[in-house]
C-alpha cells in the first residue's frame, strides 16, 4: 500500500473528526507564538541596533590615518550602501588674540547617516534638530569654543587660511562618543572648504572616516569584505565595537529576548507532548484494527510519522502566517508608543519558524505516536492490552536534544541555554518530587472537608501520578512565567536602577591637583553635597611580567588597540561602590608601600593579564611596576567615573596627573556650570545628558520588547494549561455525566471544579514560586552578574496569581464538561 497516500487521507479524516485538531492547534499556537516572537524580536533587534548605531552616526565606520581608498567607496556604492566621508583633526582656531586647540570635523551632506544633529541659535538657546550641515564658509561650534574665544553666533573666526562665520551652536553630534575624556572644543565644517583652509598637508595627523549605512545583510557582507581587504592603518567600528556601556546593554537585550524565545519553545513542546499523548491513547483501537486488517508495525509507524510531518509542516506554515499578522498588529500597537519606525520584517523568521516547529513537533510528539506501531492486534479482543510505554529516558533525551539544538540558535548564548534547559529540567524533577509529598500530605485532609472541596481534593490527590504530571506541566509553565515576571520586575528594575533619573549628567575633566580643593568646595556649596574627584594619570602599558607589550602580538584587534594606546590610570584607597572583586583582595589603607594594581576583568581577559602578574607602565618617561592583586567587575552602565586599571595610592600618587569627576545637575541649576567655568577656565565640562538619553531610550525599547515577548510566552503557557485539561477531558466528561445523573446540579459540579483548580493553583503557585526564585537567583548571579534580593512576597503572591490564572482558564477549558448530557452515562463503552 502507499503509506504516504494513506497518511494524507488519514490526516484529513482525523482532522475532520476532530482527533488531530488539538495537536494541530498546539503546533499552530506554538509556531505562531514562536514566529511572531522571532519576527518581532528580529525587527526590534534590528531597530535597537539601528538606534544604537546613532552613536556611530552610521551602521559601520572605517577609520584610517590615511585617505580612504577609492575602491572601498566604490565597493560600498556597489552594495547600495549610503556613504559619507569625513575628516577630523585638531587645529588651532583663532579670534583676534585668542586661540584654542579645537577638534575639527569636516563633513559631507550625507552626515550623519544615523541619528540627527542638534543645534541652537545662540549660547544656551533652545536646542533644535538640524538635518543640514554647515553651508560652505560657515561653521557650527560648541559652547566651549564660544566661551573659550569669547565669541557668539554671527562672529567670524579663523581656521587655517580661511575665515568662517559661526552660524549655529553645535549642541549634539551623534558620534561624539569615542574617547569622552580627551575632547577639545568642537567645530563642524563643510568638507568642500577643507582644501581652502590649507590644513591638509602631508604628515598632518588626520583621521579619515568612511561612514556606511544600509540593511544589516549588506553591512555584514561589506564588513566581511573589509575584514579580508583591510589596510594596516585602518580599523573598523560596528555597533558592537562601540562604547562598552552600549555593548553590554545590547548583549543583555539579546539575552533577554533569546531567553524568552527559548522558554516559548519549551512550553510549546510541553503542549504538543501532552496533546500527542492523548491522540496516541485514543488511537490504540484504530491501530489494533489496522493490525488485524494486515498492516505491519513499520507501516503503522510510517503512517503516523508522515501524518505528523504533514501536520507539522502545514500547521507551522499557518503558524508563521498568523505570527506575521500578530507581529504586524503588535507593531501597529507599538507605533503609538515609539517614535521610531521598525525595519521591515525579514524572511528569516519564517525559515526559523518552520525549522523550530518541525524539530519541536518531532521531538515532543514522535515518541508517544511511535507507540502506536507497537499496539498488539490482540487488543481487538483484550482492550487492556496497551503497548509498552516509550522509555522515559528517550523522551527526555529527545526533548533536551531539541532544546539544545534550538537553544543556542534562539538565545545566541550557549551558557544561557545550558542554564535555562537544566533549570527547566531540574525544576520539573523538583516540582514532581515536591508535588508528590505535598499531595500525600493533603490527602490526609480529605475526610475533614466539605463536599466540593472534598471532591476537588479527591480529584487532585487520588490521581496522584496524573496530578504530578499536571503540576509539573503547569508548574514549568508558571515557573517560567514567574521567572519572566521576576526577570522583568527584579532584573530589569535592577538594570534600570543603574541609570536612575539622577545618573551623572556632567563630567568635569582636566582639574589640576591644586584646583581639587577649590572645585570640591565650590560644588559642595552650589550642589549642597560633596562630590568625589578621582585622580587620572596617563600611562602606557609597556610590560607584562617583564615581557614587552607589542600591539602586533595580539590577534584580537581590540586588544591590539588597547595595547597601543595610553591608559587612564587612577589610584584609590577604597574600591568604588559600583565595582566588585572577582578575584584576589583589595589593599588596606594608605600604609601599603608596595605598588599594586587592580584590573577590570574584561580588559584583563582581552590583554591576557592574570592575577599575580607584574605590570609595568610608562608614565611621563618613568617606569612603574606592580603586581596585579585583584580583578574587578565594573558596572559600566552606571555612568560613574570608572577605570580599567587602579593602583594603590603608594604606586601612583607622586606622578603628574589631573582629576576627573562626574555628577548630576538638574536642569534648573545649570547656571552653576557657568560660574564654575568662570572661576576655573581650564576645566573642561562634558555634557553627557544627550548620551544618557540615548542609552535610556535603548533600554526602554528593550523593556517594551520583553513585555511583548512576555505576553506571547504567557499565551504559550495557557496553551499548555489547555493541553493538560484536554488530557483529562474524557474522564472529566464521564464523571460529570455521572454526577449529574446522581443528582448534582450545575453549581455543585462547578464548585467541585473550582475547588480542584484552586487547589491545583495553590500547590503549583507555591512550588513554582520557589523554583522561579532559585532560577532567578542563579541567572542573576551567574549570567547577569547582578545582586538580586528576591521579594519574599512572591511566594505568597504567586499562588494567588496562579489561582487567578488556573481557575478561570480551567473552568473555560472544562466548560464542555458542564454542558454534557447525563445520557452519556447510558452509552455503552
Amino acid at each position, binding site marked *: 500500500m502507499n503509506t504516504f497516500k494513506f497518511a494524507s487521507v488519514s490526516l484529513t479524516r482525523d482532522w475532520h473528526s476532530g482527533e488531530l485538531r488539538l495537536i494541530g492547534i498546539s503546533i499552530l499556537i506554538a509556531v505562531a507564538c514562536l514566529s511572531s516572537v522571532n519576527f518581532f524580536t528580529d525587527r526590534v533587534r534590528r531597530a535597537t541596533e539601528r538606534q544604537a548605531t546613532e552613536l556611530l552616526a552610521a551602521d559601520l565606520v572605517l577609520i584610517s590615518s590615511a585617505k580612504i581608498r577609492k575602491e572601498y567607496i566604490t565597493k560600498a556604492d556597489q552594495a547600495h550602501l549610503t556613504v559619507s566621508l569625513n575628516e577630523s583633526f585638531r587645529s588651532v582656531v583663532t579670534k583676534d588674540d585668542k586661540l584654542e586647540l579645537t577638534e575639527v570635523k569636516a563633513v559631507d551632506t550625507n552626515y550623519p547617516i544615523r541619528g540627527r544633529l542638534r543645534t541652537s541659535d545662540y549660547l544656551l538657546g533652545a536646542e533644535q534638530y538640524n538635518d543640514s550641515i554647515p553651508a560652505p564658509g560657515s561653521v557650527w561650534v560648541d559652547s566651549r569654543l564660544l566661551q573659550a574665544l569669547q565669541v557668539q553666533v554671527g562672529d567670524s573666526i579663523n581656521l587655517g587660511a580661511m575665515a568662517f562665520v559661526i552660524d549655529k551652536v553645535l549642541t549634539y553630534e551623534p558620534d561624539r562618543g569615542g574617547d569622552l575624556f580627551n575632547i577639545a572644543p568642537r567645530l563642524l565644517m563643510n568638507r568642500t572648504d577643507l582644501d581652502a583652509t590649507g590644513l591638509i598637508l602631508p604628515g598632518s595627523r588626520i583621521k579619515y572616516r568612511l561612514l556606511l549605512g544600509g540593511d544589516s545583510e549588506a553591512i555584514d557582507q561589506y564588513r566581511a569584505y573589509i575584514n579580508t581587504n583591510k589596510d594596516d592603518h585602518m580599523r573598523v567600528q560596528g555597533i558592537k565595537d562601540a562604547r562598552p556601556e552600549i555593548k553590554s546593554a545590547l548583549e543583555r537585550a539579546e539575552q533577554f529576548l533569546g531567553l524568552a524565545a527559548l522558554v516559548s519553545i519549551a512550553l510549546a513542546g510541553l503542549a504538543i507532548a501532552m496533546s500527542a499523548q492523548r491522540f496516541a491513547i485514543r488511537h490504540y483501537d484504530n491501530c489494533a484494527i489496522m493490525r488485524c486488517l494486515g498492516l505491519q508495525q513499520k507501516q503503522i509507524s510510517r503512517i503516523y510519522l508522515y501524518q505528523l510531518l504533514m501536520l507539522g509542516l502545514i500547521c507551522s506554515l499557518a503558524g508563521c502566517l498568523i505570527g506575521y499578522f500578530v507581529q504586524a498588529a503588535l507593531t501597529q500597537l507599538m507605533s503609538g508608543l515609539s517614535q521610531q519606525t521598525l525595519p521591515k520584517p525579514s524572511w528569516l523568521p519564517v525559515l526559523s519558524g518552520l525549522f523550530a516547529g518541525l524539530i519541536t513537533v518531532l521531538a515532543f510528539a514522535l515518541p508517544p505516536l511511535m507507540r502506536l506501531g507497537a499496539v498488539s492486534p490482540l487488543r481487538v479482543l483484550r482492550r487492556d492490552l496497551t503497548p509498552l510505554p516509550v522509555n522515559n529516558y528517550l523522551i527526555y533525551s529527545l526533548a533536551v536534544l531539541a532544546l539544545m539544538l534550538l537553544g543556542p540558535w534562539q538565545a545566541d548564548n550557549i551558557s544561557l541555554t545550558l542554564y535555562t534547559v537544566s533549570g527547566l529540567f531540574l525544576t520539573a524533577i523538583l516540582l514532581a518530587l515536591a508535588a508528590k509529598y505535598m499531595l500525600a500530605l493533603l490527602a490526609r485532609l480529605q475526610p475533614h472537608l466539605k463536599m466540593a472541596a*472534598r471532591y476537588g481534593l479527591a480529584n487532585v490527590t*487520588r490521581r496522584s501520578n496524573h496530578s504530578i504530571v499536571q503540576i509539573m506541566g503547569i508548574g514549568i509553565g508558571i515557573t517560567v512565567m514567574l521567572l519572566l515576571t521576576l526577570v522583568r520586575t527584579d532584573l530589569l528594575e535592577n538594570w534600570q536602577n543603574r541609570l536612575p533619573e539622577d545618573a551623572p549628567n556632567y563630567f568635569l575633566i582636566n582639574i589640576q591637583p591644586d584646583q581639587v580643593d577649590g572645585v570640591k568646595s565650590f560644588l559642595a556649596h552650589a550642589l549642597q553635597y560633596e562630590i568625589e574627584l578621582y585622580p587620572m594619570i596617563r600611562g602606557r602599558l609597556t610590560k607584562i611580567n617583564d615581557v614587552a607589550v607589542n600591539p602586533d602580538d595580539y590577534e584580537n584587534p581590540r586588544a591590539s588597540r588597547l595595547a597601543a594606546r595610553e591608559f587612564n590610570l587612577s589610584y584609590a584607597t577604597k574600591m568604588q561602590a559600583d565595582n566588585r572583586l572577582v578575584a584576589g583582595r583589595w589593599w588596606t589603607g594608605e600604609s601599603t608601600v608596595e605598588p599594586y594594581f587592580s584590573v577590570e576583568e574584561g580588559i584583563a581577559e582581552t590583554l591576557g593579564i592574570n592575577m599575580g602578574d607584574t605590570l609595568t607602565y610608562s608614565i611621563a618617561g618613568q617606569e612603574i611596576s606592580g603586581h596585579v592583586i585583584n580583578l574587578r567587575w565594573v558596572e559600566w552602565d552606571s555612568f560613574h567615573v570608572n577605570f580599567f586599571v587602579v593602583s594603590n595610592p603608594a604606586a601612583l600618587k607622586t606622578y603628574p596627573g589631573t582629576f576627573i569627576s562626574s555628577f548630576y545637575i538638574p536642569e534648573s541649576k545649570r547656571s552653576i556650570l557657568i560660574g564654575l567655568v568662570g572661576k576655573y577656565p581650564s576645566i573642561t565640562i562634558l555634557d553627557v545628558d544627550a548620551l544618557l538619553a540615548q542609552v535610556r531610550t535603548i533600554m526602554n525599547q528593550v523593556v517594551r520588547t520583553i513585555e511583548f515577548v512576555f505576553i506571547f510566552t504567557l499565551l504559550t503557557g495557557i496553551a499548555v494549561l489547555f493541553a493538560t485539561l484536554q488530557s483529562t477531558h474524557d474522564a472529566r466528561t464521564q464523571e460529570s455525566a*455521572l454526577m*449529574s445523573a*446522581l*443528582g448534582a*446540579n450545575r453549581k455543585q459540579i462547578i464548585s467541585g471544579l473550582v475547588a480542584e483548580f484552586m487547589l491545583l493553583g495553590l500547590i503549583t503557585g507555591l512550588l513554582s514560586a520557589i523554583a522561579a526564585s532559585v532560577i532567578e537567583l542563579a541567572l542573576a548571579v551567574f549570567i547577569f552578574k547582578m545582586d538580586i534580593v528576591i521579594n519574599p512576597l512572591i511566594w505568597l503572591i504567586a499562588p494567588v496569581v496562579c489561582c487567578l490564572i488556573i481557575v478561570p482558564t480551567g473552568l473555560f477549558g472544562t466548560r464542555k464538561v458542564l454542558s454534557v448530557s447525563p445520557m452519556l*452515562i*447510558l452509552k*455503552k463503552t
Partner: protein
Amino acid sequence: MDSENNYIVQALGLGKQVASPEGTLIILDAINLAIKKGESLAIIGISGSGKSTLLGLLAGLDRPTTGKVILNGTDLNQLDEDGRALIRNQVVGFVFQSFHLLPNLTALENTALPLELAGAEQADAMAMQKLQAVGLAERIHHYPNQLSGGEQQRVAIARAFAGNPQILFADEPTGNLDHKTAQRIIDLLFDLNKENSTTLIMVTHDHAIADHCDRQVVMAGGQLTENL
C-alpha cells in the same frame, strides 16, 4: 382503572428523534407507558432498539422531542436541567452496566456521593449501612480499581439505594459480569428492591433476568409492546 396517583412514572406520547445524514431518525415513536409504585418492569429488546433511550427519558436524563414524562407527579418537561437533577437526587437511583464508580473515590465515598450532593448530615454513616447491606463492610476504603467487577457493581447498588430512592433505574446491570456473579447481583438487587419497596425499571436483553420482574415490555422499531 387505577387512579393516576398510583403511577409513579408515566410516559405520554413520548417520542425521540435525532438528525442524521440520511434525514431525521425516529428512535422512539409516541410511547405510552405507566408504571405503578412498587412495580418492577423489564424493558427488553435487541441492541439499538431504543431501550436505553427510553430509560434515559423516563429517568429525566434527557428531554423528549415530543410527549412528556411524569415522574412522581412532576412533569419533567416543566423543569430545567438543575430541576431534573434535584428530582434525580431525591427520587431516583441508578445502576449501570459499566458500574460508573468515580475512580478517585473509595467505596464509601462513592456510596456517600448522592447523599453528599443532597446535603445529608450523616452521609458517611448512611453509606456505611448500605455497604454493609451489600456485604462490603470490609472493603469500604478500597478504590474501584482494587475491587472485582461484582464488588464494583455491589458498590454501585449500595450507592443506588443510599438515598432511599422511590424508583431504581437499572441499565443492563449484569452486562459486564460473568453468569455466576450476575445471578448474585440480580438476587441482591431484587432483595433490596423488595426491602425498600422501590419501583424498579430495568433494561435488559436477558429474558431470564426479565422473568424476575412483575412486568415486561419489548422495544422494537421505536415502538413498545407489552409482553404478556
